[in-house]
């Protein structure tokens, strides 16, 4: 099977349309399971009480916010390297979802910080770097919308996303050396997890759910972008209608 044909927006459009329901349904199902486990099955934390339960949204959202930035930059880089329009469209589609998760991570962090640290906001390393990540998402999106020429908009925002990808780790470490109040990571690849198994399970399920949700939403947005940019009719639906009309005759 020749996969490269799906790099053409026209071919990708119906494929994305077929994939979206699958990702969406599984995402909703896993979100239901993950939230149920997080809120009803996972034990109460002996230090933080019930307020810790927001981590089942907070931690996956924070992971996704950083992961999506990298994915966006990869698509931007692929677009620059191969001059593929669909790659730029993917990068464009990822930015709003990434910004949404960044905002969600900040919001849930503030909601957790108030009962636990006694403050909505503290200038801690991770909070600060997450905030700056939000600024960078905003920069990518604003740069794109300020440029009317689509080709230049694609390539300029690609350059900025790639510059940002170099900068994000530097920002992360600089603010970490600058000030740290945030608790250390409870989940780590090298030492394993320090949390209860059900907590970890719920968090991982939520991460997968957010991941699938992102794919579904991004594919839907790519479809909109394809239609908008090529000012073409909505292919498959339109074609089906035409075909039906032809057959009826």
């Amino acid at each position, binding site marked *: 099977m020749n996969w490269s044909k799906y790099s053409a927006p026209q071919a990708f459009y119906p494929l994305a349309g077929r994939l979206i329901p699958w990702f969406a349904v599984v995402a909703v199902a896993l979100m239901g399971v993950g939230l149920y486990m997080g809120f009803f099955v996972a034990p109460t934390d002996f230090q933080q009480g019930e307020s810790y339960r927001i981590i089942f949204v907070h931690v996956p959202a924070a992971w996704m916010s950083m992961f999506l930035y990298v994915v966006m930059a990869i698509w931007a880089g692929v677009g620059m390297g191969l001059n593929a329009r669909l790659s730029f469209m993917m990068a464009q589609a990822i930015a709003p979802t990434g910004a949404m998760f960044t905002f969600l991570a900040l919001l849930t962090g503030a909601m957790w910080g108030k009962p636990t640290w006694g403050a909505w906001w503290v200038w801690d390393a991770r909070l600060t770097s997450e905030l700056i990540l939000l600024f960078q998402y905003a920069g990518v999106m604003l740069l794109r919308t*300020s440029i009317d020429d689509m080709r230049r908009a694609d*390539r300029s925002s690609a350059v900025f996303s790639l510059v940002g990808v170099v900068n994000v780790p530097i*920002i992360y470490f*600089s603010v970490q050396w600058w000030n740290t109040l945030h608790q250390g990571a409870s989940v780590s690849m090298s030492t394993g997890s320090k949390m209860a198994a059900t907590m970890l399970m719920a968090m991982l399920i939520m991460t997968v759910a957010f991941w699938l949700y992102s794919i579904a939403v991004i594919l839907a947005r790519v479809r909109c972008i394809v239609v908008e940019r090529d000012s073409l009719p909505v292919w498959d639906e339109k074609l089906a209608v035409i075909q039906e009309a032809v057959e009826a005759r």
Partner: protein
Amino acid sequence: MNRSSMWEAVSGVVKRDLLLAMRRRSDAAMSVFFLVIVASLFPLGVGPEPAVLKTIGPGVLWVAALLACLLSLSRVFTADYVDGALEQMVLVPQPLAVLVAGKVFAHWLISGLPVVLLSPLLGLQFGLDGEPLGVLVLSLLLGTPTLSMIGAIGAALVLGVRGSGLLVALLVLPLYVPVLIFGAGAVTGSMAGVGGEANLSLLGASLVLSLFLAPWATAAAIRIALE
């Protein structure tokens, strides 16, 4: 292409930009006055207590230097973009990234170096003296070229874009965060008695990294803008 022709091209770019700046001296003076005014507004806003001013001094001066650099960014490429000189620079056989480095160096000489030279005076206004004052000058000397380097990427990205003045601030300021942290951190560290060496080393590392990467990103952005 031999090395001497490349060197000639770079020094030609630097000389030309310096000459243009000399012809319009008020442009260069503006960012310096901006720095002085912004730095003078803070004591008026937070009150004249020497202890408070000493605490906020390094941060305020660094933020002011950062904003002064930001305001002068539009001068790096805009005039050349409008009159077509930038297109000629893309066409010459010497690599664009090297010419860009020359232009950024000229920009630093015009708007960064005066900030460095003026900083001891402003530092005195905030009650800094002795070693912290020296560290402030040194940190600005290492940090302002990095600001020019990173800023050039943003300046090239917004060439000919509507609302470019605000947009360049939104793009570049988040990228300035590490430099601000290291720079102000060096001065506060030296005031606290732990020394500013670690942060100064990090500033030096940022400078080297930006010297290495930023001209290429800027050159790519210029090519995109001129397409």
